[in-house]
Each structure stands twice: as structure tokens, then as C-alpha cells.
């Protein structure tokens, strides 16, 4: 537990020192949103597809089977 906490602190410190401007940060945020949206609504992996199946059909614009 202590090692996880230490690792987290270390990564936080590294992340804070990352030299990124606003455009880069925005692009990363959009990319993260994209990955999450794709995984939830468009991936065909059975485990994910089954879990979000009803949600996909309830949004009228997510293509499914």
C-alpha cells in the first residue's frame, strides 16, 4: 500500500513537470474522451458490448449489430 502511494506521488510529480502547452493538453483531453467514448459505444469486444448494449440502443445514434 505504501509503495503504491509512493509510486502515485512520484508519477504526480513527473506529470506536474511535463512541459505541455494548452493546445497539447486539450488534445490529450479530447483523445482521452475519444478512447472512453469509443470503448463504451463502438468497440465490439463482447464483454464491453454486452455491458453497454442497452445504453447504445437507447441513444438512437450508436450503431449496433
Amino acid at each position: 500500500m505504501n509503495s503504491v502511494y509512493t509510486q502515485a506521488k512520484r508519477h504526480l510529480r513527473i506529470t506536474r513537470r511535463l512541459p505541455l502547452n494548452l493546445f497539447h493538453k486539450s488534445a490529450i483531453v479530447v483523445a482521452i474522451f475519444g478512447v472512453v467514448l469509443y470503448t463504451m459505444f463502438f468497440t465490439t469486444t463482447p464483454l464491453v458490448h454486452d455491458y453497454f448494449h442497452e445504453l447504445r440502443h437507447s441513444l438512437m445514434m450508436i450503431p449496433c449489430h
Partner: protein
Amino acid sequence: MRQFMQVLASLLFFASSLMSSFAFAAPAARVSWEPVTPIDSIRPQLDPLTLVIRLSDAEGRALSQAAVHVRLEAPQTQTLVSTDFPVVEGSALFDSRVVVKDGLLPIKIVPPIRGSYRFVVDVDPIGQDASFAPTRSEWQAQVGENPAKKKNLVIFMSILIGLAAGSGLVLGITRPARTRSRGLVLGAMLGTFALGLPSRSDAHGDEEHGPGQTLESQAKSVTTPSRSGLHLVLDLPTEHPRVGNLSALHVALLDAQNQLVPARIELSFTQLEHGIEVFRTEAWTPSGTFDWQGQFYDGSSHQITVRAWPGEQAESLTLTTTIEVEGVAPPPLAVAKSFGSLLALTAAAVALGCWLGLSLRNRRELTA
């Protein structure tokens, strides 16, 4: 004089043949349709579009018997946003030739998607029947989207815009870094996409819907137990039905000597996942066989029910069987359209949030 007589005779012959063709040409049949439920209230995947196709002669009398080719086409692909059944878009939901008795053909189908459905009905006389001429009739039915789904989409979009704009706002307010590292950002973006994209491969094989997976071949024929010497036989397609394609079903009513028996046949499909009867029709079969080409638009288990009333008897035979429908992964274009729309909306919301954040930060720095 002789030439004049020849010309006159040929003119008279032409005129008489023209008149006779008009006088004895059978008039076209009248084809009309009556929706049993108001089309405006139909919600795709939930409510059935129930209609009765009425066939009558020029005087309005119901046609005693007619061969009817009936076809229903699903709405065409929409330009901007996909529906939730993109494989069905523009495909035929059924395309069959049946015999209609007493001028009535009832059809019930639960429309899978929003949009304009096109019905095409061709009516032809059977045998030497000259009471009407072959007639084609077409009409369209506009089915709207389920209001609950529209509401869900608005809620979802609001949450997405809120989250994306909030993220942009936080980014805009925070102070900028001193140096740049383009390679790191590009690496991070490519890495995140690389993690997500491989799942797009043909792994659309789940227990419920099974798109893309190869299903085991099914029994070809189902037969009811013999009752009073009669038995009903349903021939299923050799391959499992696939979403987007028509599947041919063949029904036959046989007596104890395996002779075909004329009957009234009712065919229905029930989608078992939600327990909804998605299709039903009824037709008369003077030959004792009934063929239907229809599409199962949901890649899940369906129950097929066939009822047959031999001759004019009130007692019927019923046959029920379950069929597995093979789902199909959505086409890349449909995915690209919907995913692109969501991503563009997210990017716009993040940009808006950044702009707001920058404005707030500048104002704060000016006042400080």
C-alpha cells in the same frame, strides 16, 4: 378507287382493333392500405406497424383470389448520423409472393429504425382470371424516432458537453508550461488510440447477439406431430439468418398420404430477448405450400410460429421453433459518422471551455 378502298379497309381494321383493345382490356385492380395503428405513434423496435392491404376490382368488390408480390424496404442510410441498426438501412425487410383470398392481406411488423419505409405491392391475376389487370402500387410510411431515445440523447449530450467544457475550463485557467514537448503529446495520443482501436477487430461475438461469430448449422426442417392425419412442415434456411439479408422459409401442410392440403397460414416471428412479436402475416395457400422471404433484423434468438387452418376448418395446427440470428458488426462508415460527431462535439466543448478559462485567467491577472 381500289387503292382508296384498301386504305379505308385498313383504317377501319385499325380503328376496330383499337376499340376492342380498349373495350376488353381488364381494368387495374385497386390496392389500398389501412394502418390499424396511427403511424405517428409508432416507436421503432417497440410498436408494431399493423396494416391491412385491401385488394378490390374496379367496382370496389374484394378480389376473391390474387397473387400478390409484397416488398417492404427499410429507410435509406442517413447522411449525418447513423441509426442503431445500420446494417438494416436500405435493405428489404420482406420480399415475398403470396396468394391473397377475399382481398385482404394483413401485415404486422415492428419497424427497426426511424425513417421512411417503402411498400411495393404487385397484384397479378391467378390462372385465367381476367377480372383485373396486373397492378403495381407503392406507398411510403414515415416512422419517427422514439421520444424517450431523443430525451436520452439530449441528456447524454448535455453530460458530455458539460464534462468536456469543464475539462477545457480547468485547462484554460491553469498556468501554461514553460516549454513544449510535441513528441510526448503525439506519443500519448497515439498510445491511447492504439490501446482502444484493436478492439474494433471482428470480436463482435457475444452470447446475446453474436455478430460476426459463426453459428452452428441448424436443423433444416421442423414438423408438428401428426394430428388427425395432418402435419405441418417448416423448412428453415440451411445457414443461420443474418441481419441485413432475407431468409427463405418454406411451410407445407401435408395429410397422412403426404399430399399437400390447401390451408390458411399465419406466420409470426417473436424476438425472444425482449419478448416482442416483430412480424406477423397471414395468407391463403391453395397449393398447400407457403413461402416467405423475410429479414430478422436483430442478431438474437427468434421464435418462429406457424399456424395452419386446413381448408375452411376452425381448428388449427401450430408449429413453433427457435432460430438463432447471426448479427453483423456495424459498417465502418456508420461507426465513423457517429463517433466523428461525438468527437467533434467533445472537441468543440473542450475548446469552448479553454476559451472561457483563458478569459477568466486573463481577467484575474488584470485585476491582480
